[in-house]
């Protein structure tokens, strides 16, 4: 489309006959405007990605120089019990958080759908957890999770007659407690996106269903939920990826404890990389996480396609 470049050369150019300079000037300007973004992406996204791939094949040593070990770092990850447990915890946390947030988010979205002013207020208030700073919110929850009878959450469940729980302090409940906080923070986000999806549902279908005497449940099942399917898949993919790479929540709440019961892939990678200086194995861990993310995205896409077909 060289004709669109013609005006760029100024008033002298006759339409349809761009002078020679215009042919490279247009693209040159385009690339100049793009340069800052590309340079920053190159340095802080793409080069690190390749450095990570490269270093994952080495035993990285600061003063002795790197030593080629081939796929040994990956073998370590696959066979190591710690890594196996961390991967399992990441998957449990990711899927628990994702499903919890999706189900609750959908339920709440249905409950507060509508144009009323007070609903707008409820939505805004409920959305606050999403915009809050993770580290600060996690500190707050860490205090609320205090395992003694005087802990905030134990007082709250006490009103319902439930015995005090150890929350983060026990190996059996640490991961579930982190999940609880993540669902609290993830639900309003999903709710908001579902609400946006609900706006797009054809109102006349509701009326037609009412004329046919369909119940509320059937209306939901056959009109509302099918319309929300694309939204559901987008949210599922995003949340699952975010769940797999979870770091701050776990780092602040338990740092993987007690006794490794809530160690996830990212906290383990962080410890290996920055505390034990095992940069090669840590890099390999990052690549494994990347592959898992990629695989998840592809699988979800394939499922979607099959369902649509």
């Amino acid at each position, binding site marked *: *489309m060289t004709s669109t470049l013609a*005006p760029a050369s100024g008033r002298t150019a006759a339409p349809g006959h761009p002078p020679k300079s215009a042919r490279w000037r247009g693209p040159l300007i385009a690339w100049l*405007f793009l340069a*800052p973004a590309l340079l920053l992406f190159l340095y802080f996204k793409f080069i690190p990605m390749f*450095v990570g791939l490269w270093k994952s094949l080495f035993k990285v040593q600061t003063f002795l120089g790197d030593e080629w070990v081939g796929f040994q770092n990956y073998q370590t990850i696959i066979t190591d019990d710690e890594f196996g447990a961390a991967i399992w915890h990441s998957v449990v946390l990711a899927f628990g958080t994702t499903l919890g947030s999706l189900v609750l988010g959908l339920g709440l979205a249905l409950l507060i*759908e509508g144009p009323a002013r007070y609903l707008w207020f409820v939505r805004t208030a*409920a*959305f606050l957890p999403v915009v809050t700073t993770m580290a600060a919110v996690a500190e707050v929850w860490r205090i609320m999770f205090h395992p003694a009878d005087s802990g905030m959450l134990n007082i709250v469940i006490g009103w319902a007659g439930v015995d005090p729980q150890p929350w983060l302090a026990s190996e059996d409940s640490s991961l579930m407690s982190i999940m609880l906080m993540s669902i609290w923070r993830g639900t309003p986000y999903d709710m908001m*996106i579902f609400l946006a999806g609900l706006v797009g549902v054809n109102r006349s279908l509701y009326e037609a269903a009412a004329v046919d005497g369909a119940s509320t449940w059937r209306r939901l099942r056959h009109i509302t939920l099918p319309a929300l399917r694309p939204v559901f898949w987008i949210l599922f993919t995003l949340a699952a990826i975010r769940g797999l790479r979870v770091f701050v929540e776990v780092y602040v709440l338990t740092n993987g404890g007690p006794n490794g019961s809530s160690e996830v892939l990212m906290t383990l990678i962080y410890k290996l990389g920055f505390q034990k200086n095992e940069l090669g194995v840590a890099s390999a861990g990052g690549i494994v996480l990347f592959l898992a993310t990629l695989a998840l995205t592809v699988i979800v896409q394939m499922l979607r396609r099959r369902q649509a077909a």
Partner: protein
Amino acid sequence: MRFDSALGLESRRGPLATTGKVLIYGAMVVVFTGPLIGLLMSAFNKTLDPTSFSLWPDEFTLENFIKAQDKNVYLYLLNSFIVVGFGLLLQVLVSVFAAYSLARKKFRGMTFVMLLMLATMMLPEEIIAIPLSLVLADMPLLHVNLIGTYAGMILPVGAWGFSILVMTEFMKEVPVELEEAARIDGAGELRIFATIILPLCRPALGVIGVFGFTMIWDQYLLPLIVAPQSEMWTLPVALRSLRSDEEVGIGVLLAASLLALLPSIIAFLAFQRQFMRGLTSGAVKG
């Protein structure tokens, strides 16, 4: 009967429906804002008990915020503002420049660049954290060490795929006639960009501004990697170090947490419309 919503709750009237609605909506507000209100109240509460977390202060005090001074909390806050200030400025500039090119120009390789942008969004920073620390310690070709510098915390957030894509979509909407008219008047590339395109994109600037702010303010792993020494910590990273204090209990931690939360909450409340707009543009990636 009206059908504004799937459940049609709004059109239900009567005492039973009203009570039900008040209970549901009340519970929602309490559950989602309770911890935040608890933080607000407890930060102004005078107590030494590390488990105490109250929805109402027993004894109002500013002591926590005064003691925070000794714990360098305001230094960390300043660091956070430096990083978010320069980081956001850079991010917005980089985004509008890149978007101008992607939305208003046609050139060979554009599809490839768009693919690159999407790839960066599929590549969360957590995954490259370890190699990023190696790159920052010794930048290829430049051989500069960015560890322990503000630049190390600012430059990596400078380009964000989400901002660029939102801006690109918006800039595509600006009518091409306006641009052509300016060109006929002899306006140069930068002039068209600054006086025609940018002013028309002000709503989108609000969107990428508020998203960029919360994104940079919430950064944790990056400053954790870049700032080994405590003088460089940002507030979110510093919170961990404030946990135990014999004198004021968890007071300083609560005060600092509140200070860490407030800016993004204020940004959200002030730019709510832009925020919702960006959220539903369907391109949000953590």
